């Protein structure tokens, strides 16, 4: 039920109801503003009325207080826009006033007003045009709400959003930089291309078990002197950055050692000393498996002499042009880096036309082929597989093995590196397959 003094009593109302209404009205009257003028002057918002040209005709005390102005200096002397900041003025001219002219009312527009003394006060402004009896616009009534709290809240939100945005940009930039660094590192761990070896062909494949983990397998081929080339392939223990650091140390130690003394056992012995020196006593044993060897092409015969040694590594396989294949055993070679001095075993072979030397890491022979790990692929299965490809050039052998690796799917949970070095077949038909 409404409680308004000017309300017509409903003739149907019971007397009791009317009595109750009158009592309530009296109680409200005591609490309510006794003067509309006082409400106008001291309302919790600013009021002002302007002529259609903006000249201020009436302004309440609240707004004068906010702005620090005297009524005499404002009424009839200033326009509404004089109370606004430059930005507020501009917005008023371009948006506020035209919209008000079109719609006769506008509400909740955020503007800034100037305070005496140079301060600014963010406000929300609503205006309505009062029309005369013939519909002509007479004046503009405006309410002004203090928006300082709201503005502070919005600014805080904005600041937070900008901070979050900045953090996200920074994180993305960091991630991009990290990926770039990882890519450069990975390249330094694995060569893009191998140098041409006269009278020989090489082919490689690297299977990464996880794309965002730096791999632990490595290989390289490089010139030693005018005639000979060095090559190596191996697998460091562990994964990630520590494994990558170990890979890097291993690669560069082997290359430097090989230039100093290309003998395979000497090079692996130097590597063993360096790794043991570096990681022994750290409480975190780190080591690698490696095959290192030299290639010496003989231009007269077209043959390639291979001298290699291995530590902790599965034996290399030699595929012959006649369709046979066999391991090139290097028994007893110890993991590189776990003991101060370690035994390494060397072996030699000669590759003739159509022969290929295959080096691989244990991802290949440790791949799971069944449901459990008892069903590992194994070295005998590998030998049988490659025997079927004996006589083919290195790239064809690597291609066949890549297909085999792909067929393991999830069974292959380790990185796998392949390096095949061969002498082109003298049979022109086979050579044309290249």
């Amino acid at each position, binding site marked *: 039920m409404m409680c308004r003094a000017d309300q017509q009593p409903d003739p149907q109302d019971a007397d009791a109801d009317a009595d109750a209404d009158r009592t309530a009205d009296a109680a409200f009257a005591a609490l309510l503003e006794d003067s509309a003028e006082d409400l106008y002057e001291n309302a919790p918002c600013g009021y002002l009325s302007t002529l259609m040209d903006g000249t201020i005709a009436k302004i309440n005390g609240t707004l004068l207080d906010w702005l620090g102005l005297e009524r005499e200096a404002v009424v009839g002397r200033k326009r509404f826009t004089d109370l606004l900041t430059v930005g507020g003025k501009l917005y008023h001219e371009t948006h506020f006033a035209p919209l008000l002219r079109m719609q006769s009312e506008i509400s909740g527009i955020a503007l800034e007003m100037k305070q005496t003394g140079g301060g600014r006060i963010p406000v929300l402004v609503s205006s309505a045009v009062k029309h005369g009896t013939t519909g002509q616009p007479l004046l503009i009534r405006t309410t002004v709400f203090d928006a300082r709290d709201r503005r502070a809240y919005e600014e805080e939100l904005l600041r937070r959003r900008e901070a979050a945005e900045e953090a996200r940009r920074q994180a993305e930039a960091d991630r991009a930089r990290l990926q770039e660094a990882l890519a450069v590192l990975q390249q330094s761990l694995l060569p893009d291309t191998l140098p041409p070896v006269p009278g020989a062909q090489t082919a490689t494949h690297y299977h990464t078990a996880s794309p965002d983990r730096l791999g632990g397998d490595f290989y390289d081929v490089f010139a030693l002197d005018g005639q000979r080339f060095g090559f190596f392939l191996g697998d460091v*223990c562990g994964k990630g950055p520590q494994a990558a650091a170990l890979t890097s140390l291993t690669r560069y130690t082997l290359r430097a050692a090989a230039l100093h003394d290309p003998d395979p056992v000497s090079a692996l012995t130097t590597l063993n000393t360096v790794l043991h020196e570096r990681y022994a006593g750290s409480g975190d044993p780190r*080591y690698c*498996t490696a095959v290192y060897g030299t290639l010496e092409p003989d231009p007269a015969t077209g043959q390639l002499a291979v001298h290699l040694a291995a530590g902790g590594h599965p034996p290399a396989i030699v595929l012959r042009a006649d369709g046979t294949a066999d391991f090139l055993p290097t028994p007893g070679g*110890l993991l590189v880096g*776990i*003991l101060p001095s370690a*035994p390494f075993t060397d072996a030699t072979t000669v590759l003739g036309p159509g022969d290929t030397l295959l080096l691989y890491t244990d991802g290949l022979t440790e791949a799971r082929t069944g449901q459990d*790990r*008892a069903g590992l692929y194994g070295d005998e299965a590998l030998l049988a597989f490659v025997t079927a490809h004996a006589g083919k050039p290195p790239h064809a052998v690597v291609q066949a093995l890549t297909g085999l690796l792909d067929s393991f799917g999830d069974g292959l949970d380790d990185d796998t590196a392949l390096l095949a070095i061969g002498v082109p077949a003298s049979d022109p038909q086979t050579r044309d397959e290249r």
Partner: protein
Amino acid sequence: MSPLKITPRDAATGPVLELSGELDYANVAELHQALDGLALRPGRCLVLDMSGLEFCDSSGITALIAARSNAQTVRADVALAAVPPNILRVLRIVGLDQIFTVHPDIESATRP
């Protein structure tokens, strides 16, 4: 995949850890913990009974090497017993069969 099970006991020669299941990257920390918890005295020998071990990856190999090097710092030893053929094959490839004493069974490993 069978989980790794580590059962410690004592023998006349020193502590014994019976390993069974699969030892790999995912659970190798359990073996490291078990090894750290052992009080290996000088002159004693830690025997790793591997008869029930079905699989051992390179993380497991690392744990064996760490066990050996820790034992050596207290002038003790580590021996392997009853190593299944597939794991022995891996140990041969990496040359560890030369640096560990490998016993065919647990009885010969723990005979004082």
